[in-house]
């Protein structure tokens, strides 16, 4: 399949897209089209895409929606077209505009969701966005979210992905989040889709000073997934936590790619990504911490721990530190291990079946990430979901009438 099926498609429908979209998004569309048509899909020779065959994931003939969605309006959340401020200086600015996948999104996205938490305002309830993939034909969605946290703003944002129908769904998501000075953002992404779903996510976060940002990405059930998260810490004394967990089995593939840039002195960052792979699943983690010149007193720790339950699983891990300052504290570590035979034997001696013992150990491994989640209700629910997932009972999300 040729890359330029998307180029041809865009040329045919660009006017329709423009009509259904808004000025801010249209303003960046042609530039994105030029980038995408010039570069095409990145090959696995591109370092940050080396674990994912992008062209193959985008090859199928997907239907693409050309009209705006009726996104829900809540206190802090509305369609970008109805933004309560000028978003032109923010839309597609911190996103990596040279990245073809991002460009494809910018080129094809018809609508965007705008989350705006004003100055010194605390969103009392978590803002939850549930994406439910439905339809009777194979569909690609280009989801776009712009988050602006003004100075001193606080919010929890939970974004979930579900699939209601057994079709091939391709999601290409771009999130840009601006965190003003002294703001707090907890952003969660939870994927519980199915084997026929492919997800590309590119998250860009820009932090001012004294920020507290936490991004947690949980891949609980999927087909092929590539999540990228790039954080730029541009103000002093900010703290970033990037956590992730992956449960994958069968032929599932999950690739997490992170970059944290320390631009200025005195910031801290922590990363913890844990994978449990079973059957013939493949996982990849590539994390980079880039400490720029002058970013003294940076404190950073990156950990990627992986459990491969069978010999058929594959895990690729690549933790990288790149440091141009001389007074920093940075660490990175990665482990790939198997289930602990002694623990399995101990449990079996107590009458617990091998199957159940493996389940308990796999769930225990992931627990460390779940327990870092500050939202108690979410944590409790995820404990339950993880247990069900491990038992193979997670095909439908519980309590949801749509799926």
């Amino acid at each position, binding site marked *: 399949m040729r890359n330029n099926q998307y180029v041809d498609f865009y040329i045919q429908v660009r006017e329709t897209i423009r009509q259904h979209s808004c000025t801010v998004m249209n303003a960046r569309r042609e530039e994105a089209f030029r980038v995408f048509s010039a570069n095409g899909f990145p090959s696995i020779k591109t370092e940050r895409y080396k674990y994912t065959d992008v062209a193959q994931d985008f090859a199928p003939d997907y239907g693409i929606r050309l009209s705006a969605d009726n996104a829900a309006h809540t206190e802090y959340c509305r369609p970008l077209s109805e933004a309560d401020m000028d978003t032109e200086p923010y839309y597609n600015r911190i996103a990596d505009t040279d990245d073809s996948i991002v460009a494809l999104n910018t080129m094809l996205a018809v609508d965007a969701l705008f989350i705006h938490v004003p100055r010194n305002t605390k969103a009392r309830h978590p803002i939850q966005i549930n994406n439910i993939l439905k339809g009777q034909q194979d569909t690609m969605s280009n989801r776009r979210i712009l988050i602006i946290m003004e100075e001193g703003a606080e919010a929890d944002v939970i974004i979930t992905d579900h699939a209601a129908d057994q079709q091939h769904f391709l999601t290409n998501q771009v999130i840009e989040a601006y965190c003003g000075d002294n703001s707090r953002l907890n952003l969660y992404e939870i994927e519980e889709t199915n084997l026929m779903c492919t997800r590309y996510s590119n998250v860009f976060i820009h932090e001012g000073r004294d920020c507290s940002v936490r991004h947690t990405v949980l891949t609980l059930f999927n087909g092929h997934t590539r999540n990228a998260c790039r954080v730029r810490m541009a103000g002093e004394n900010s703290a970033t936590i990037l956590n992730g967990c992956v449960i994958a089995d069968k032929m599932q593939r999950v690739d997490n790619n992170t970059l944290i840039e320390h631009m200025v002195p005195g910031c801290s960052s922590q990363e913890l990504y844990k994978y449990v792979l079973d059957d013939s699943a493949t996982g990849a983690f590539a994390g980079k911490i880039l400490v720029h010149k002058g970013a003294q007193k940076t404190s950073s720790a990156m950990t990627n721990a992986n459990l491969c339950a069978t010999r058929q699983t594959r895990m690729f891990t690549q933790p990288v530190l790149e440091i141009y300052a001389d007074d920093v504290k940075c660490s990175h570590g990665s482990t790939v291990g198997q289930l*602990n*035979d*002694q*623990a399995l*034997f*101990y*449990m*079996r*001696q*107590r*009458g*617990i*079946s*091998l199957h*159940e013992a493996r389940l*308990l*150990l796999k*769930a*225990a*491994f992931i*627990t*460390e990430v779940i327990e870092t989640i500050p939202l108690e209700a979410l944590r409790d629910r995820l404990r339950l979901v993880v247990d069900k997932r491990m038992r193979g009972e997670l095909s439908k999300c519980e309590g949801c009438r749509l799926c």
Partner: protein
Amino acid sequence: MLEIRNLHATINGKEILKGIDLTINDGEIHAVMGTNGAGKSTLSNVIVGNPAYQVTQGEIVFNGMNLLEMNTEERANAGIFLSFQQPVEIPGVSMTNFMRAAVNARYKALGREQLSAGDFLKLMREKRKLVELDSKLTGRSVNEGFSGGEKKRNEIFQMAMLEPDFCILDETDSGLDVDALRIVAEGFNKLRRPDTSAIVITHYRRLLDYLKPDIVHVLIDGRIIKTGGPELALEIDEKGFADYTAL
């Protein structure tokens, strides 16, 4: 209860047990004493079915069942319990979830109804008191952050929960101070029914003073070279194994 005939076993190709014969009747407590590396722990691991060990010859019959044809969990659910010399820490698996999975499996094997969540917690509380195990510990991950003594008490607590017919205490006394030893030993004595049998593996007499074995075996270099009454333990305590290892 348990009948072992001409048992040979290896680990990583090395023969450790070189022909063990042992008969344990209902209600009997047998002590197995011997030097380091004589095969005491191998014997217990082979009885409970540790997959790391290979049985090359011989048989083990437990209440009429051929144990060697059963996997580890089937043996456990048939009523065999090993109190580990070094209990494993299992971070992230809570004592409660672990114990519930084990009790459910055992009850199923016994044909009993599964306990409700409330009854299960009540049972946990009740049995915990027996070995004076701190309630904080049952809220933690399995054995994680437990002291040596707490781990051993936790073993006896699990025994209390699972009500086995046959127990192996593998150096349960090691690492215990005098008070902890008394608590563990008295806990075991309170738990055992008249027909409960046990093998007690130890280097020392102290534990045997509490548990009062009916029969004492001396295991040296993979073979039982002497069997006697409780007085044999006293003799070994005084003279050591020198007389036997010289043979």
